[in-house]
């Protein structure tokens, strides 16, 4: 809302400069976003809060200034210079639908001379950003900007039967509005009609047919109170937003209808000549009662913490137009009728008052609303910094330490943390194997994705069921910007539709990793080597180790988004929780990746909730161990895990561990074979083993392996 400084000062005589006003108003909740000079005037751009319809007017802002400065408000003159005849002699008003229009007033000005407005009026309208049209239209505009009451002028001659009917439109009824657009109406929209047809869209815009023209002689000035919800609905439905609808939607001053009209009529008589009727036809079948709000005086201090005296409370509220209508003190004592509210509050600081909210303040409904008004005008700058008494100890989210440990470990492994949008392209739907926790839900036959009804762009309508599409998009972004070595991780929620018996969609914390390019050393430009599956697996293991969940198990698997033969299923305590592997060629091609990309996705929630694997002491060995290496030439399908399990399951006495030293595959070996060198460690708890003993045990193991895997010892 643009407020003219000069105009404001006509309504309240303040000695503050425009800049001082800006500061003071801002600190009272009327944020002045800018002050600009316009000739000999200044324009204050006030960002009006959405609950304050009354501030969409100069009078409303002036009222705040008047309370702020303790200077009285000056109501503008509203007496027409010439008045004769009663309005009912010239027109008639009927409200068919009072639920949508509780009050409608019409007043006539006859024999006006339509023409340009005087210079002062033009200047003022232009200063606040309005385009002058003609004196009649300009005056209705001017009075709206002054009082907040939207007004409309009809050419009386053009109203069929010279009368007004306020009713709901008929379905399919048409109306050409002032902007020369033909509107098709529905039965929920309120229109102003004459004896025959709709002539205005109530509270939104007038009709072209009854518009004021150069030849107009007699005008009908409409001033009304329309139901905010009705105007909002109509404006929304037709995609219209006007100065009038803005005000009606928020709630206008239902008691100010006739006064604003009188002001308008007085100005027309003064600036366009003509004679007004002495009165208006004011149809107001049921008087609107402002809500009565109870205020316990001590609550003001209690809720704000400000040192507000009861007298301050009464003074501020009264100045704002809240009328104390009733008071009660403890014990129900009756007050002498001539006691003022101020006196009462002084004597009984614990009293309870009832206030009738002013008709222009639709936002005042409960005690807290009154308290805010008092606190705001008392000044928040007087508020002390206090801390509430402690009643509990602080607490992180469950498993926060694990979240942070995983993050730290991955960062140490060279991975940077990504955050991607939660909505993705539905094109990724079938691309990725979902986490077991989500996949299980997908099998109940329903649509297992969560979809946005109103995405910003069509390619971001799916709530992500996997973090991988986001990470791969991030890899592509980095490739496009010249970074070829990329290691990223993300933790965040993935989504699945709710099952039939569930209250809401399913959300689950996931952890995903992606790595591609070369292993990079800190502060060195040269990269050592290409990353591979084992780098990603290692990073994952490092994260899991830091989380202290116990070790993960890896087993070869097939997953939709992973290249066959380079994919592993990951389990924790026997339960599958994710996959790791090299991105499948088709997906890589879709992203135009020309280098291997490795990805992993884990059920982070399962990891977070896993039982912790606490450290436990094992006595240190007292005797040295003996190690023996064995190189086995085995079929490529035989995994290290199988070999190790085979060794350990022999339960050979004193054989403590079998670890891999080296894996060799190459042209020196027969096709489809590889050589794995294991190191076996033997130790007896009570003595040093002799070489001959170990040789025997070693022999048993090698023989057993040979039998099981047809492994050749080299």
């Amino acid at each position, binding site marked *: 809302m643009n407020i003219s400084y000069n105009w404001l000062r006509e309504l309240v005589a303040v000695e503050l400069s425009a800049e001082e006003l800006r500061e003071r108003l801002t600190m009272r909740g009327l944020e002045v976003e800018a002050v600009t000079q316009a000739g000999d005037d200044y324009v204050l751009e006030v960002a009006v*809060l959405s609950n304050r319809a009354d501030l969409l007017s100069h009078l409303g802002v002036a009222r705040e200034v008047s309370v702020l400065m303790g200077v009285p408000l000056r109501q503008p003159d509203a007496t027409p210079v010439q008045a004769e005849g009663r309005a009912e002699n010239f027109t008639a008003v009927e409200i068919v639908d009072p639920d949508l229009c509780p009050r409608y007033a019409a007043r006539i000005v006859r024999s006006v001379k339509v023409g340009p407005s005087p210079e002062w009026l033009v200047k003022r309208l232009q200063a606040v950003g309005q385009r002058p049209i003609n004196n009649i239209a300009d005056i209705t505009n001017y009075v709206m900007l002054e009082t907040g009451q939207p007004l409309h002028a009809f050419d009386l001659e053009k109203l069929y039967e010279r009368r007004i009917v306020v009713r709901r439109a008929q379905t399919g009824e048409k109306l050409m509005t002032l902007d020369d657009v033909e509107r098709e109406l529905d039965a929920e929209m309120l229109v102003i009609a004459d004896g025959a047809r709709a002539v205005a869209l109530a509270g939104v815009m007038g009709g072209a047919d009854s518009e004021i023209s150069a030849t107009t002689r007699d005008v009908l000035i409409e001033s009304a109170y329309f139901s905010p919800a009705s105007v909002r609905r109509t404006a929304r439905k037709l995609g219209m937003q006007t100065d009038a609808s803005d005000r009606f939607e928020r709630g206008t001053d239902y008691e100010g209808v006739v006064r604003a009209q009188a002001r308008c009529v007085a100005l027309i008589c003064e600036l366009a000549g003509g004679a007004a009727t002495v009165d208006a036809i004011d149809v107001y079948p049921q008087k609107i009662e402002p809500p009565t709000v109870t205020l316990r005086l001590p609550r003001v201090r209690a809720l704000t913490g400000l040192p507000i005296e009861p007298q301050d409370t009464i003074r501020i509220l009264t100045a704002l137009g809240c009328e104390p209508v009733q008071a009660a003190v403890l014990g129900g004592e009756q007050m002498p009728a001539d006691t003022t509210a101020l006196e009462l509050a002084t004597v009984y600081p614990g009293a309870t008052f009832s206030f009738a909210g002013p008709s222009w303040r639709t936002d005042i409904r*409960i005690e*807290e609303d009154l308290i805010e008004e008092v606190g705001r005008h008392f000044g928040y700058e007087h508020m*002390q910094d206090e801390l509430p008494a402690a009643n509990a100890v602080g607490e992180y989210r469950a498993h926060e330490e694990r979240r942070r440990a995983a993050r730290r470990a991955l960062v140490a492994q060279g991975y940077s943390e990504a955050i991607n949008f939660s909505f993705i392209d539905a094109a990724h739907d079938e691309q990725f194997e979902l986490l077991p926790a989500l996949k299980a839900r997908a099998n109940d036959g329903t649509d297992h994705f969560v979809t946005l009804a*109103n995405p910003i762009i069509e390619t971001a309508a799916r709530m992500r069921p996997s973090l991988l599409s986001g990470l791969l998009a991030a890899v592509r972004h980095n490739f496009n910007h010249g970074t070829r070595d990329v290691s990223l991780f993300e933790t965040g929620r993935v989504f699945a539709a709710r099952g039939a018996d569930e209250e809401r*969609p399913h959300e689950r914390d996931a952890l995903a990793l992606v790595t591609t390019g070369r292993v990079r050393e*800190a502060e060195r430009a040269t990269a050592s080597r290409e990353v591979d599956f084992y780098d990603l697996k290692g990073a994952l293991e490092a994260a899991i180790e830091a989380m202290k969940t116990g070790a993960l198990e890896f087993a070869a698997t097939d997953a939709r988004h992973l290249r066959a033969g380079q994919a592993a299923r990951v389990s924790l305590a026997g339960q599958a929780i994710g996959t790791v592997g090299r991105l499948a060629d088709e997906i890589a091609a879709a992203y135009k990746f020309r280098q291997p990309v490795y990805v992993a996705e884990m059920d982070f929630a399962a990891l977070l909730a896993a039982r912790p694997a606490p450290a436990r002491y094992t006595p240190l060995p007292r005797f040295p161990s003996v190690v023996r290496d064995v190189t086995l030439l085995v079929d490529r399908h035989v995994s290290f895990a199988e070999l190790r399990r085979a060794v350990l399951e022999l339960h050979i006495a004193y054989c403590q561990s079998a670890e891999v030293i080296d894996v060799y595959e190459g042209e020196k070996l027969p096709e489809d074979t590889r050589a794995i060198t294991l190191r076996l460690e033997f130790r007896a708890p009570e003595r040093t083993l002799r070489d001959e003993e170990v040789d025997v045990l070693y022999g048993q193991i090698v023989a057993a392996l040979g039998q099981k895997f047809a492994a050749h010892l080299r």
Partner: protein
Amino acid sequence: MRRWILALDISHWTLTLDVRLMEQPEAVREAFEQEFGRFARFRGAESAAFDGLRLADVETTLRELSDLRTRHTGKKSALANLKKQIGRAAAEERAQFAQAVQQLEARIAEEIAKVERALQDTAARLRTERERLDVTLPGRRIRRGHVHPINLIRQRLEDIFVAMGYTVEDGPEIENDFYNFTALNIPESHPARSPQDTFYTTDGFALRSQTSTVQIHAMQRRQPPLRVIAPGKVFRRDTPDATHNPMFFQIEGLVVDRGISMAHLKGTVTEFLRRLFGTDVRTRFRPSYFPFTEPSAEFDFSCFKCGGTGCALCKQSGWIELGGSGMVHPNVLRAAGVDPAEFSGFAFGFGIDRMCILLYDLDDIRLLFENDVRFLEQFD
């Protein structure tokens, strides 16, 4: 060489001939000196003879010198022979002869040692040069990654609030109408509910448009007194530009207890900002309007960059706008099953992304979700 053999030969049968006897050390000395001649120039490590010599040359010379020593002082050397002769010499000459031999031995040893020391010093010096490290080269370690700036700040905020006695809470990102709007006292007609502003799923759920939803969950889960913060992701239908994203991060604070006032709110926000920016931070409230609080206020804090005198960051105002706050609306308390007659509370909220902009001087928040590693690497 021949002379030396000759001398040996002679010694066998001229043991008693004193003149000859005394001539023998002299001959051995001459023989030594003739061979030692080429090493003599290396006496003293600063000798010019070392100039331009490479380590390999020095090491070779050292080896040759060692051979020379063996030849001239070893078991089979002429000197050793002389020493054997001492016992056989006539008694009256023995002392003189022995002295001559000892002098010769000492002299040879000294000559060799002197050169050897110089050579060794030089070798050590050259070896040091050759093995000198460039200590300015970077240490060897894997290039580490970086935590996302949003989470860096989020962790910091959580740490501060936990230290102030708050519990960190979270709620669903996909909400139903009750939690996202109704319980927060947002009326049916409020524009925030429109599909223009809020994302809806096809089955009628809303992506939470503010972390205030967690207020309701938290109050339902724990009865007051309580104090919680709720950091998290929120969604609004804004088209991305330098200052907007359709997804961003907020943090919400909520305290409900008996006798909670707005001054507690102000004190809490001030305390938190001081822990984040330093003890000289001041805060101020500007009256505002939010459906879920009454009274409501926006809070500003004195610019941490200029201290309030005005700079580019605070647009010369000395104040930085941070977020919204207020006393929890009684309708919100009721919606969560808390009796407003007994309890009052305050709530505040602000954007973590906005904090990123402030702390890191970010000029385009779209960078936050592009995950460009050149961007991510800048934060610690």
